[in-house]
């Protein structure tokens, strides 16, 4: 029985923007978007000895929420000196600028106090990550 591959992304978009404000200062941004990956989730449940067990009706029948994030960067290049063979630059960036919680995996948990109640609990890897980098080239 065919099922969607785990890497099946009908829509996959990357918008990349970069601009040099001055010869030494550059800014950049990118926005990545892709359709949520197929995922196997239950369509029903049954209970044995108080444990809730899932009923699956197909593999990768569902999809996780779509993935998208926005990154910014600012690069400041050091002054070019004729007697120096290397050039440095500072880079200030923000990964996932609007802190979207992109779903990495989805699990179901039973409430400890009310065992008949189940929740969908998602795990996300990164929220917003600012970074400062110093690069040099020679």
């Amino acid at each position, binding site marked *: 029985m065919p099922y969607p591959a785990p890497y099946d992304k009908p829509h996959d978009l990357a918008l990349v923007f970069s601009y040099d404000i001055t010869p030494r200062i550059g800014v950049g941004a990118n926005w990545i978007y892709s359709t949520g990956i197929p995922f196997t989730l239950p369509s*029903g449940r*049954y209970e044995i000895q108080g*444990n809730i067990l899932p009923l699956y009706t197909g593999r990768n029948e569902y999809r996780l929420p779509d993935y998208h994030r926005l990154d910014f960067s600012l690069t400041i290049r050091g002054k070019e000196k004729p007697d120096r063979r290397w050039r440095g630059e500072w880079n200030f960036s923000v990964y996932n600028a609007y802190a979207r919680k992109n779903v990495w*995996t*989805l699990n179901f*948990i039973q409430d400890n106090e009310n065992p008949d109640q189940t929740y969908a609990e998602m795990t*996300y890897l*990164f929220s917003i990550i600012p970074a400062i980098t110093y690069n040099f080239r020679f």
Partner: protein
Amino acid sequence: MRSASFHKLLIGLSLLASMAFSCTEIIDIELGSTYQRLVVYGTVSEDSLHHQVQLSLSSDYFSNAPSPKITGALVELETGGRMIPCSEHDTIPGLYLTDEAFRGVPEQNYAIRISQLDVNGDGAGEIYSAQSRMPSGAILDSIKVTYFQSPFVSGYQVFMYALDPPERNWYSFKIWKNQDLLTDTLSKYFIQSDDFFNGTYIFGLPVGFLIDDEPREAARPGDTITFELNAIDQAYYNFIAEAQLEIAGNNPLFSGPPANVSTNIDNGAQGIFTAYSVQRVSLVIPEETQ
């Protein structure tokens, strides 16, 4: 070692490692529906008692209500050519007990037949059946407890000494601490196949871990530890292993794709019917082991 506690510890540690910079959040998702199925959980053991069969129905994933129970079905247990009728419990719906209390016998076949119910609501009744042969399994000799200490987890570890027969065997283990059954539900059962010690004498197989951090499990010298060895069939072993995997959760780095827990009930039902043998041994934790 395939005990549920260490399995959970492993999954827990791997989830911890992969979630070092990540978090969890409860979200709302929409799930579809599927047709209702019969769910059976029936066991016959070597103990002399009214053996039980529980019948219920599946439901929508977020139904958030106790599973619907099946009342008024006809449940019959067959063994050695004779039918043993079962009757419904007068106060607990969905629970059927054998009319007579009897001791299951190793190497005997047991079959169950469920009829007079209409799960798919088409007006025609259905018949469900399953069978299981009670294995005899290993001859239990004794157990030993030693105290284990580590930065992650500490507690008394229980080891089993037994002689495993040459054929393929599967086991489940139960542990009581002072009359309190610690392995009281599916997710806590310890199971083990004999792949690594088939046909040999088992010199101290780890069969239980009483974690100090769990108040109910934490044991001290003077506590009585009772160990029960069940020789189970392969269908029940697979059922428990798969159910525990589904209960434990999914980690993309280490987990395989989720799947329905296997069953030995026919006609599209879920659950399990099994016969298992019972051997027990107790000891009191001595002072010197800590």
